[in-house]
C-alpha cells in the first residue's frame, strides 16, 4: 500500500496550479517584506528593543546590527521575487526559509501563526520542482501543500470547539463590537446574535472547508465562501497578509490544470514525462514527509499533555493553529529582593521592553519567566547577585475579570524553562 501510495505520489501532474500558486506566494511574501520597510517594523521590532524574547534553545539567534537587519529584509524581498519568478527556485526557497525563520526566531513576542505557516511552506518549496519551465510536477507536491493548508484550517476549527467560542461567542463578541463602523453591516456587529452566528459559522467554515474544497461539486462554492470569509476578516481585523495567503492557498484545492483551463490553453503533452522509479532517496524523502505531517498532526494536540488550560497558560499554544480564539489583556510588575541586603525593588517591564513586547509578555508565562531571568542577570551585573524575582501578573481572558496568572510567591529566578509545564501557574478562570 505504501509502495502504491509513493508510486502514485511520483506520478506527474500538470504544474499550472502550483506555479500559479507559487507566483502568488512569492508576490505576497514580497508585499510582506515591503510592509516591514513601509511601516517601520524593522526598527520597531528588531532594532530598537534592548532585550529579545529568544526561543528556548535558540538563545544564540541574535539580530544583526541595524544596517544588517535592513539588508536582511532587502534580501528576503529579492528572494520572494525570485520565488515568484521561479528563478533558482530551490536555492531561493531555501535561503528564504532560512532568512525568514531566522527573523521569527529572534523574538517570541513577534510570533504569528501565519509566519509559522510561511516558514513551513518555504521549507516544503525547497523540495518541489515547480520552478520556471516545469510543465509537470510529482503529484505529492500538490498533495503536500494541500495537506499543510488543510491542517491549518482543520485545527483552527478544532480550536473553536470550546465553550467560550460556541456558548459565549467570545472573543468574537468583543472584536465584532469594535467594528460597528464597518460599511453596510456595521450596525449589526455589536448585536449578540451576530456574534453567535459568526462564531458558529467560523467554526463550521474552518472545520469543513478542506472537505468541500476537495469535492469537485462544492469546490467553487467553497472557494467563494473562502473568499468572502477572508476578505471579511481582512477588513475587520488586523491580520496582515494572513487572509490573502490563505485565499491563495485555497486555490491549491482546484484541479492541477485550472489556470490552463481558465485561459483555455490546451495542455502540452510533450511535457509529461514517464513516472519515475521509487529510488532509495525518494523513499527517504517520503519518510521525511510522513514524519513532517505526523509532527504537524501531533503538535496541535500537545497541549493535552499539560495540566493547564492552553488558552490561559499558553502551554502548547504556539505551532498548533489556534488562530484568533482568545482575547487577553494583562499587566505585569516584577518584585526583586536581594536576600543579602534585604533591599527590594519594583521593576516595571517597560524598563526592558517595548510596548508590544510588554503586552505580549504580560499574558505569557514563558516570556514572564524569561524576563525574570533577564532581570536577575541585570541585577547581578549591577552588583546584586542572587536576587529573588517575583511577578505580579494579572490577566483578563475572553471578557472575564482579571485574575493572577502566576503564583506571586514563587521566585522565578530559581525556576527553569520546562517543556513539561510549570507548577507555579494559577488556575484558569474557565475551570
Amino acid at each position: 500500500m505504501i509502495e502504491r501510495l509513493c508510486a502514485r505520489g511520483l506520478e506527474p501532474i500538470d504544474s499550472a496550479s502550483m506555479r500559479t500558486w507559487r507566483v502568488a506566494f512569492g508576490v505576497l511574501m514580497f508585499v510582506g517584506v515591503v510592509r516591514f520597510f513601509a511601516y517601520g517594523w524593522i526598527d520597531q521590532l528588531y532594532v530598537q528593543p534592548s532585550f529579545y524574547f529568544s526561543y528556548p534553545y535558540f538563545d544564540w539567534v541574535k539580530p544583526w546590527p541595524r544596517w544588517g537587519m535592513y539588508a536582511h529584509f532587502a534580501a528576503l524581498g529579492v528572494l520572494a521575487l525570485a520565488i515568484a519568478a521561479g528563478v533558482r527556485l530551490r536555492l531561493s526557497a531555501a535561503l528564504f526559509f532560512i532568512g525568514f525563520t531566522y527573523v521569527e526566531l529572534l523574538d517570541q513576542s513577534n510570533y504569528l501563526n501565519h509566519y509559522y505557516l510561511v516558514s513551513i511552506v518555504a521549507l516544503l518549496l525547497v523540495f518541489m520542482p515547480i520552478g520556471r519551465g516545469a510543465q509537470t510536477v510529482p503529484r505529492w507536491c500538490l498533495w503536500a501543500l494541500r495537506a499543510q493548508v488543510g491542517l491549518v484550517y482543520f485545527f483552527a476549527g478544532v480550536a473553536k470547539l470550546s465553550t467560550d467560542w460556541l456558548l459565549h461567542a467570545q472573543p468574537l463578541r468583543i472584536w465584532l463590537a469594535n467594528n460597528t463602523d464597518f460599511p453596510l453591516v456595521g450596525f449589526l456587529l455589536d448585536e449578540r446574535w451576530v456574534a453567535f452566528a459568526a462564531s458558529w459559522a467560523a467554526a463550521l467554515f474552518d472545520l469543513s472547508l478542506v472537505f468541500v474544497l476537495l469535492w469537485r461539486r462544492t469546490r467553487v462554492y467553497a472557494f467563494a465562501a473562502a473568499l468572502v470569509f477572508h476578505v471579511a476578516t481582512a477588513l475587520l481585523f488586523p491580520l496582515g497578509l494572513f487572509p490573502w495567503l490563505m485565499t491563495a492557498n485555497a486555490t491549491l484545492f482546484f484541479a492541477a490544470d485550472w489556470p490552463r483551463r481558465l485561459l483555455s490553453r490546451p495542455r502540452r503533452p510533450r511535457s509529461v514525462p514517464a513516472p519515475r522509479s521509487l529510488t532509495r532517496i525518494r523513499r527517504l524523502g517520503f519518510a521525511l514527509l510522513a514524519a513532517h505531517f505526523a509532527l504537524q498532526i501531533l503538535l496541535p494536540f500537545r497541549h493535552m499533555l499539560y495540566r493547564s488550560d492552553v488558552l490561559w497558560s499558553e502551554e502548547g499554544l504556539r505551532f498548533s493553529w489556534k488562530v484568533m480564539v482568545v482575547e487577553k489583556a494583562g499587566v505585569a510588575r516584577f518584585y526583586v529582593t536581594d536576600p543579602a541586603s534585604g533591599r527590594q525593588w519594583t521593576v516595571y517591564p517597560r524598563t526592558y521592553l517595548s510596548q508590544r513586547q510588554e503586552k505580549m509578555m504580560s499574558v505569557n508565562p514563558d516570556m514572564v519567566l524569561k524576563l525574570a531571568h533577564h532581570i536577575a542577570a541585570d541585577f547581578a551585573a549591577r552588583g546584586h547577585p542572587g536576587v529573588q524575582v517575583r511577578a505580579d501578573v494579572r490577566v483578563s481572558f475572553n471578557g472575564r475579570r482579571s485574575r493572577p496568572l502566576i503564583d506571586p510567591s514563587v521566585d522565578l529566578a530559581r525556576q527553569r524553562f520546562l517543556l513539561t509545564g510549570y507548577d507555579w501557574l494559577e488556575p484558569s478562570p474557565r475551570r
Partner: protein
Amino acid sequence: MIVIAAVGCSAGPSGPDRRAQLVHDLADVVYLPILRELPPQTAELVARSEALCAEPTQATLDAARQAWRAARAPYKRSEAFRFGPVADLRVAGAIDFWPARSADIEDELAQTAPITETYVGGLGSTRKGLPVLEYLLFGELERLHDGGSAMRACDYVVELARDVDRRARELVAAWEPSGGDFRGKLIDPGSGGSPYAKLSDAVAEAANGLFAILEELEAAKLAKPLGHVDGGIPQPEAVESSLADNGAADMAANLAGARAVYTTEYGGATGMSFSQAVADLDAQLDADVRAKFDTCAAAFQAMGRPLADAVVNDPAGVEAAFTCAKELYTLFVADVAGALGVTPTIGDVDGD
C-alpha cells in the same frame, strides 16, 4: 446636566454607533473644554509675571505663584489625552519637561544674550516651560530684584510665561474646528487628513491616553519618589513640582482628567462614555472603577505635605496613594481593556 449638543460644536453622528458617539462626546465634553481652560490661565500667568518684574514684591510674587498653580491644573488634566497636536507640535516638552534641570537653568541665567521671544522659542526643553518657571518663581524673591542678574532673571520669567502662553494657544488652536480642527480628524476617522484609518483606532487612542497617564501616576509620580524602583531608597527629588509643593495637586489634576475621560463628564456636561460601555458589559466592573477613582482621589488628598518630605518621613499616606494608583491602573489595563477589546498600544503590527 448640560447635554452634549449644548456644548457648541457640531451635532453628533445620527447613526446608532455608540463608539462614534463616544469619540464625538469625548472631544466636545472633555478634551476641548479642558484645553480651552488653559489659555486664560496662561494669559494670567503672563500678566502676573509682568507685574512681578515691574514691581518685585512678596505680593506680586505670591500672585505670580498662584497664577503658575492655576495654569498648571488644566494642563495636568489634559495629560489624560496626550495625543494629536500635543505630540505633533511637541507641546509637552515645551510646556512641561520634567524634572527640571537646575544646572541648565543656572547656565541660562549666566548667559548674556538678550532674552526675547525668539530666543526663548529656540531654547531646548530643559530651559523653558512651567518647571523652569517653578524654579524661578518658587526660589528667593531677592533673585528677581537684587544683584546683577536680577534683570535677566525677570526677563527670563516673563518670556518663559509668554512662551508657555503661545504654546498653549497653539495647542488649543490645533484642536479647534476653526483652527487645525484635530477634533474633526478625531471624530471622523478615515476622512482626509485624519490620522485614524478606522473608528477603532480613534477609540484606542482615547483609551491609550487614559492608560498612559494612569501608568505614569503609578510608576513615575509615586513609585519612583517612594524609592520602590530604587531599592527602597526614597527619591524626594523625583516628586513633581516639589519646589512649589504642587505634586499632589498635579496628581489630583491628572486623576481628574483621567476620570473625565472615563466618564465623559466634565464641567457639568456629559456624554457617551467608556464607563457606559463597560457598564453594559459588566456593571460591577464599572462600579469598581468609579469607586477606585474616588478612593484614589481621597488618597491623593490625604498624602502628607510637603510631598517631598512625606516620601521620606511620612510615607504611609503616599504608599496608600501608590497602592490605589496601582490598583486603578490594573483595573484599566487588565479589566477595562480586556472587556472592551481595546488593546494597550502596540502599534500597527499585524495580529495572529
